[in-house]
């Protein structure tokens, strides 16, 4: 309240009386965990346990907030970032998030990591009406502003990626016969659903849907079967081990379809090298973040910003690890939402601002990719760019493609 007139005071009295019970008068514009000097943020991540290779994601977030604080904080408030180890076990995530919300009284929980861990706190966060901001997982269900208005995702989800492949196929080979290889679980089925939705009434182009179990020894028979049935567009959504087997087998039997590899399997080191780089030539895939190992970004302004942040705040961090790219990007998103909130730091306003991002971008997103959300669209990153593998590295080509749902 900038101008206190008698009328505004009189008008405010009944309102204040009504809200007095819920909100102490002074904190009318502040939610829990916010003062004039500080904003408390909570986070969980796998610092130990089987998934500790993801720990760079929360580490990069902590370092990012340190940088923000060194630069004077957000709107004059320093960020107190409290991050706990959940060892990637859902019960521990529940305990730690309850500690954050009920004991530490954080303002919001920023980018907790892992699909099962976020699933475990999904209902709790929405029941308690605490923002679960930009979760670090790619499942499609985080984009559910109606059912779960306190949870928002970030990265392009698997269904959107599937739609993007469909768009690409319709443009490149609209008379193709499509074969999809997918993992028989939620994320694999997300991809298939996305491709089908993207094809729309042309979904009959899919002539083979072949699944594998993570316990299968190989996917050779699925690949041979696709070739025999005349498939000429191969959508390969397998995890690195099986994606590599499929690429190698296709090379061995001399099958050269239009080969689309999903982003979870497009690592050069984990998939393409074991598959044989010569077999991987001409495969296409999609990207949304800059690959920190790719020398073509050496002189890119966004990469330089990120590299400078790494040198100063995470000098021991391995710049080859894409987790540091993701972590810094996620923290930058939360920082933007807090900036947009201004002095009205309530949890309601956080979700309102998270749902009204306009053409916002962070340094390590591919050039031109922007985050846009609305009150009914909680999928910030919807664009990707296709890339073709030239036998040595991925080369981005074409325009950015949108594939979001809704």
């Amino acid at each position: 309240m900038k101008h206190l007139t008698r009328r505004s005071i009189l008008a405010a009295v009944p309102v204040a009386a009504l809200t007095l019970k819920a909100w102490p008068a002074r904190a009318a514009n502040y939610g829990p965990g916010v003062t004039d000097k500080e904003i408390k943020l909570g986070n969980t991540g796998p610092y130990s346990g089987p998934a500790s290779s993801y720990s760079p994601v929360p580490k990069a977030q902590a370092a990012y907030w340190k940088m923000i604080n060194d630069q004077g904080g957000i709107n004059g408030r320093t960020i107190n970032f409290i991050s706990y180890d959940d060892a990637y076990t859902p019960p521990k995530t529940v305990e730690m998030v309850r500690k954050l919300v009920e004991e530490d009284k954080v303002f919001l929980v920023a980018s907790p990591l892992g699909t099962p861990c976020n699933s475990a706190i999904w209902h709790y966060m929405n029941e308690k009406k605490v923002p679960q901001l930009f979760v670090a997982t790619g499942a499609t269900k985080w984009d559910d502003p109606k059912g779960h208005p306190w949870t928002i995702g970030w990265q392009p989800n698997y269904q959107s990626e599937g739609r993007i492949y469909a768009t690409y196929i319709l443009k490149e080979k609209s008379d193709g016969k499509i074969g999809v290889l997918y993992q028989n679980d939620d994320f694999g089925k997300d991809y298939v659903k996305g491709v089908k939705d993207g094809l729309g009434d042309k979904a009959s182009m899919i002539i083979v849907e072949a699944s594998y179990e993570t316990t299968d020894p190989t996917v050779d028979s699925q690949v041979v079967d696709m070739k025999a049935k005349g498939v000429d567009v191969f959508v390969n959504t397998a995890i690195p081990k099986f994606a590599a087997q499929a690429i190698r087998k296709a090379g061995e039997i001399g099958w050269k379809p239009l080969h689309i590899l999903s982003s979870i399997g497009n690592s050069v080191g984990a998939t393409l090298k074991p598959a044989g780089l010569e077999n991987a030539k001409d495969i296409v895939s999609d990207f949304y973040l800059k690959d920190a190992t790719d020398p073509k970004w050496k002189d890119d302004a966004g990469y330089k910003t990120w590299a400078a942040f790494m040198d100063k705040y995470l000098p021991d961090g391995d710049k080859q690890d894409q987790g540091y790219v993701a972590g810094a990007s996620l923290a930058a998103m939360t920082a933007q939402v807090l900036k947009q909130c201004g002095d009205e730091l309530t949890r309601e306003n956080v979700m309102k601002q998270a749902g009204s991002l306009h053409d916002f971008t962070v340094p390590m997103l591919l050039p031109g990719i922007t985050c846009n959300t609305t009150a009914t669209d909680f999928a910030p990153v919807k664009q990707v760019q296709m890339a073709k593998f030239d036998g040595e590295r991925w080369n981005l080509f074409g325009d950015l493609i949108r594939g979001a749902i809704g």
Partner: protein
Amino acid sequence: MTIIPKDDVAAGAVPVTRAIRLRPAVRHYLIAAVIAVAAVIPLVASSFVTFQVTEVMIYGLAILGLNLLIGFNGQFSLGHSAFYGIGAYTTAILMHNYDVAYYWTVPAAGVVCFVVGFLFGLPALRLQNLYLALATFALGNATPQILKFHALESWTGGVQGLVVDQPDPPDFLSFIDGDQWLYYFTLVVILVMFAAAANLIRSRTGRAIMAIRDNSIAASAMGINLSLYKTLTFGVSALYTGVAGALGALAVAFVAPDSFTIFLSISLLVGLVIGGVGSIPGCIFGGLFVLYVPNIANSLSTGLAGAIYGVILLLVVFVMPAGAAGFVRYAAQRLSPRRRNPSTRTEGGMS
């Protein structure tokens, strides 16, 4: 403290704590005091602390299940995460798919785990010692993957897991909240289960179970059916851990395969040794350790949490080589006015 000679290699390395022999009156007062304190906790503590203490009790119950097997029967298991998981999933599936009331799912989980444990025990108990440890290790490793298996997905929810509704207090107790109600519900189940375990151990059956641990050849010579008792103990042990899993599913309100990895088995085993092998009250100390020590380690340094956990674990093992229960017993003896009487002292490496 008495070290009992055993022919069991796996459990032989672990000193077994005998029950603390207090005078019956003192013992009853002590139990009443502990129950009174436990009953007051949710009324004075925050709902988060109430939730944590609920989890401590649940881990304590799971450790008690493991203790019946390792501490009293001398068999080894690295697969109790599987029984904990099966118990949790039984509750989740019954509530989620069949709308069964939560209180029926807890005994159901116990029955399911007893049957699974008994059936697993039949062939597995032909294996001795370390080989049994390996067989149960395989079970613990396999369970998360089986839970993800797609043929079972319509039941288990696959990798996504299942959401469980947290139980509401009954109408006549509507003045307490969900966390408090779950605490009291868990407390009652735990008290019944601990009392049952104490009675079992004091019974003829309990003596047979311990005789097998102490010397299986002698036990066999005295007419104890080794394979039957060993298999039954395995089933009962699985039942206890399964009931703990069911309560755990209610407390966390979510189950997923990643909650029940082999690391859970190892945590329970650590809790067992810390609490005191072969001690029933010690299991609660084990539960405290399992829940709080990782948090303490994490609060000292996030980056070195694992190393700090290790240091705390080593310190505890050095200070309390017979676990928390053995330490309490030792302290009680030291403080007792009768301690100079050699007949009340026990031999062993404690002094």
